[in-house]
């Protein structure tokens, strides 16, 4: 099996948002979820689109246009879903993040996660 592509931090956030949103993952909801995950940092909507294009080119997600909806002026939504390669890459990133968390906790104690 080919090794998963390494993910940047923003790519991890976008992939996590798509995973969490499931069938409701499209531009607006993905952006809202990314902002919630990245808080207190904010994320530009355009950066989310550029990242979605990039991870789609890498084969980590796939997209399709839905039917037009009236609240969007009769325009379609571009929905996204994780592909197997995306799930694998996200899992590897999450495992790395967990190892980092464990190491930090070992050095600084469990209190590190409490807001100061």
């Amino acid at each position: 099996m080919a090794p998963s592509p390494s993910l940047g931090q923003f790519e991890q956030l976008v992939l996590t948002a798509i995973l969490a949103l499931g069938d409701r993952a499209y531009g607006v909801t993905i952006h809202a979820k990314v902002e919630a995950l990245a808080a207190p940092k904010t994320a530009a909507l355009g950066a989310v689109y550029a990242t979605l294009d990039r991870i789609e080119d890498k084969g980590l997600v796939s997209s399709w246009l839905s039917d037009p909806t009236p609240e969007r002026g009769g325009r379609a939504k571009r929905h996204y879903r994780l592909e197997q390669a995306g799930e694998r890459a996200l899992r590897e990133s999450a495992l790395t993040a967990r190892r980092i968390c464990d190491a930090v906790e070992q050095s600084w104690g469990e209190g590190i996660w409490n807001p100061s």
Partner: protein
Amino acid sequence: MEPELRKRRPPAPLSSLLRLLIPPPAREAVMGDLEERYRSPIQYASEGIRTMPYLIASRARRTSSIAIVGLQTFVLVACLGVTLPDLPGQTVPSWAQGGIPAAAALLALLLRAVYRGEETPVRSGFLDAVAAAVAMLLSQGMLAGLVSAGQIEPDWMLPRGLYMLGFFALPALWLIGAAEGRHGARPVGAPAEAVVQDYLRFERGVKARNRAEMIALGLIVAGSVAMLLRFNPPMAPIAWPFLAVFVAIIGYLALRGWAAPIPAGAGLEPLRSHFSRELARQNGLRGLMWWFWFGPLFVGLVANLVLFGIRMDQPLRIAIGAGALLLLAGFIAKANGDRSRAVRERIAALSGMSEAAA
């Protein structure tokens, strides 16, 4: 509910403006997203404008190949005299005189890549050349306006002699654009009839591209002959053999450049091997031709940068010339490699299809 929805919709002129600026493939979804997030005209406009650079950069990344942009740059730089040595008494250096129209043309090519819709490679290459020509003329028009207003020196304009050389950039840009093939692989398991249709499309594409290449090369040869006869430049002894090779390429394209028709009554397996063979032959032909097309550019770089640098004892010019030669060779090799990879993928898809059918 309906009046509520109507009240919350963005102003139509603003919406039309954003629609115009958003690259076509992203337009539908992004316009919908922006409308869904609409709170006020200012918020809508500011969010739309802030989103635009990301969309344009992402589209440019998806539609442009570094090798193709590199080759377009080399063609413009060479044909607009950017590398020409400065003449005594010249107040504005050659790199600046040629650099302005070259930069304008490159910007136009970038915008074309971002905003173009579905086009055949031949049409795409032709429109690339037209867009570059318009941008070059516009840049000169703007400079002429500044000169007549007394804001800048007349030397900022491209010298008249270079307009003729600049003409050669247009067929060369057409050649580059027309050679950018699309090699989408057909899904494994498609029926033989679909392969026939696919081959007929490929055959038509090859025919159109060959015609475009012959016209573009014909224009280059005719322009070069006119220039050589009129000015008899010092490089004429090198230029004539190059032109002879170009004429030979036109002859070869006319006689052997077409994709061979499908053998009558061929089944899936002979059809697949015929298709694969033709794909490989056309790819090999293009690979060789690209080195010939850019031959004059190599000669120009050697003459204007390396040899001139040696004669004038300018090590920096020699180093830039050597670097440019390597870069040009790298771009050609990369463009050929990208096309070969796409062709190999397509041949592999055809093989997979015959195995699935078996």
